[in-house]
C-alpha cells in the first residue's frame, strides 16, 4: 500500500495572484453588487479543471445567481465538469422540479457541454441516479477518472456493508495518483446545524486513511468550510450553492482553517501534476478562499 503524504501549502491569494494575474470581467447580467472577477488559479495547459457546488436544488433566485456567476467564471476558467454534493432537488421531484432546480439555473453550462456528476443528499430520491444530466450511470455510488484523478461519489445517506465493501475493493486496486471522495454528509464540520457526522466518520475514515485518500468534498451544512487537515486528509464543506444558513459556523470549534457563512458560494479546482489549486467564490463573485494542496 502506498501511503500518500501530503504537504499542505496555503498560498494566500497574493502568491496565487502573482502566478495567475487577476482577470477582471464586468457584464450587465451580474447579480446586484457583484465583485470584479478574480481568478486565483493558474489555468495550465492539460490540467484537470472542475467546479463544485452543494445543496443547490432550491430553485431560488439565489441559486440562479450562483449559476450565473459560474458561467462568468467558466469564461475565464473553462472547467469541464461540476461535482454536485447532494440535495440536488429540494421539496419534490416532478419533471418541473428538475427543470426549475437544475436544468434552468445551469442551462448555459449544460449548453456548453459541461458535465455534472451528482451524489445523493438527504433530500434526494433514489431515482435521481437515472437522470441523464446527473451522470450517475444508474448507481448510488460510483467512480470515474479524469486525468490522474479518481473521483468516488458515495451515498452517505445509506453507507451499508455493500457500499463499504465496494469502496474497499475499488480503493485496493486504485492506480490513480489523486483520490478524491465526494458525498453529502461531512465527517468534519464546525457548522452548528449539523456539524461533524461522527458515525459516518467512524466507518469511512479508516478506509480513507488506509488507502491514502487525498481530498474529501462534502455538503449538507449550508456554509463553506475548509477544515484543517485531519490525519493528513483535506476536507471541504461546500453546502451553500442554493441554500444558506447565515451565521451557522461555530468559530470556536477550531476545526476550520477558513469558513464563510454570509452568502452562497461555489468552488473551482485545478489539478496540475501534484498540485491541486482551489478557489471558493461567493454568489457575487468575491473570492472567499484560495490555496493549493501539494501531493507528495
Amino acid at each position, binding site marked *: 500500500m502506498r501511503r500518500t503524504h501530503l504537504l499542505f501549502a496555503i498560498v494566500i491569494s497574493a502568491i496565487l495572484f502573482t502566478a495567475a494575474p487577476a482577470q477582471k470581467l464586468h457584464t450587465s447580467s451580474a447579480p446586484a453588487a457583484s465583485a470584479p472577477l478574480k481568478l486565483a488559479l493558474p489555468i495550465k495547459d492539460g490540467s484537470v479543471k472542475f467546479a463544485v457546488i452543494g445543496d443547490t436544488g432550491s430553485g431560488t433566485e439565489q441559486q440562479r445567481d450562483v449559476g450565473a456567476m459560474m458561467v462568468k467564471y467558466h469564461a475565464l476558467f473553462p472547467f469541464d465538469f461540476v461535482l454536485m454534493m447532494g440535495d440536488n432537488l429540494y421539496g419534490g421531484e416532478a419533471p418541473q422540479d428538475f427543470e426549475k432546480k437544475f436544468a434552468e439555473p445551469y442551462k448555459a453550462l449544460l449548453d456548453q457541454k459541461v458535465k455534472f456528476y451528482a451524489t445523493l443528499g438527504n433530500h434526494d430520491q*433514489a*431515482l435521481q441516479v437515472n*437522470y441523464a444530466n446527473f451522470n450517475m450511470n444508474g448507481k448510488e455510488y460510483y467512480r470515474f477518472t479524469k486525468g490522474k484523478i479518481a473521483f468516488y461519489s458515495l451515498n452517505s445517506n445509506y453507507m451499508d456493508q455493500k457500499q463499504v465493501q465496494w469502496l474497499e475493493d475499488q480503493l485496493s486496486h486504485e492506480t490513480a495518483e489523486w483520490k478524491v471522495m465526494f458525498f453529502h454528509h461531512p465527517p468534519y464540520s464546525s457548522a452548528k446545524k449539523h456539524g461533524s457526522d461522527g458515525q459516518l466518520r467512524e466507518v469511512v475514515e479508516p478506509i480513507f486513511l488506509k488507502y491514502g485518500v487525498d481530498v474529501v468534498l462534502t455538503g449538507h451544512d449550508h456554509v463553506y468550510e475548509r477544515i484543517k487537515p485531519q490525519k493528513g486528509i483535506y476536507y471541504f464543506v461546500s453546502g451553500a450553492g442554493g441554500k444558506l444558513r447565515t451565521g451557522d459556523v461555530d468559530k470556536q470549534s477550531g476545526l476550520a482553517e477558513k469558513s464563510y457563512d454570509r452568502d452562497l458560494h461555489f468552488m473551482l479546482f485545478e489539478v496540475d501534476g501534484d498540485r491541486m489549486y482551489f478557489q471558493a467564490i461567493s454568489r457575487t463573485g468575491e473570492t472567499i478562499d484560495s490555496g493549493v494542496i501539494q501531493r507528495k
Partner: protein
Amino acid sequence: MKRKRHVCLLVFVCALFWGSSLAVAQKSAPEIQIFEKQVNDYIALRNKVRANAPKLSKDSTPEQIHAYRTTLQDALRTARPNAKPGEFFRPEVADFIRRTLKAEFQGKDRQELREQIFETETQGVVIRVNYPYPQSAELSEMPATLLAKLPPLPKELRYRFVGRNMLLVDRESDVIIDYMPDALP
C-alpha cells in the same frame, strides 16, 4: 522472528474462530431467517410487477423517471392489496431489531446518533403501508454503524427512520412496505 510467527499464527486461529462463530450466530437467528424469507418473497413479487413497468435507463429524462415511479407505486399497491403493518416486522423480528437498536443507542457516545435521527425534518410524513413516502420530506440518514448490525437488505429495499418509528421502504418507488412503531428506545 519466531515470536512474530507465533503472533501471526495466533491471529490466524482467532480469525478462523471468529469467522466460524459469526456463521453460527447468523444461522442461529431464526428471527432473521423469517425476515429474510419475507424479504425474498417481496423481491420475487416486485420483480414480476416491475416487468410490467416502463423500462428506465441510466440516461432517463425527468418525465421517464416520473412515469416509472408512479407506475411502480401503483403496481406495487395493486400487487399487495391486503398489505398491513407487521408483515415483515413480525413480533419476533421486531423484538430482535428493538434489541439491536437498544444496544446500538446505549451510552453517551451514541447521543449524537439519536440527535442525528431526531433532527431529520419529517413533519407531515404519514406512515401508511402501501403508500409512498412524501417527496417533500427529508430522508433520515441511516447510521453506517447501525446498518452494519441490522439484517442486510437487498438493493431494492431500505430501512428508514421517521421519529422513533422504523420503516421498510421500496427504494425506487419509495412505497412504505412495512413499519415498526416505537422502534427507537
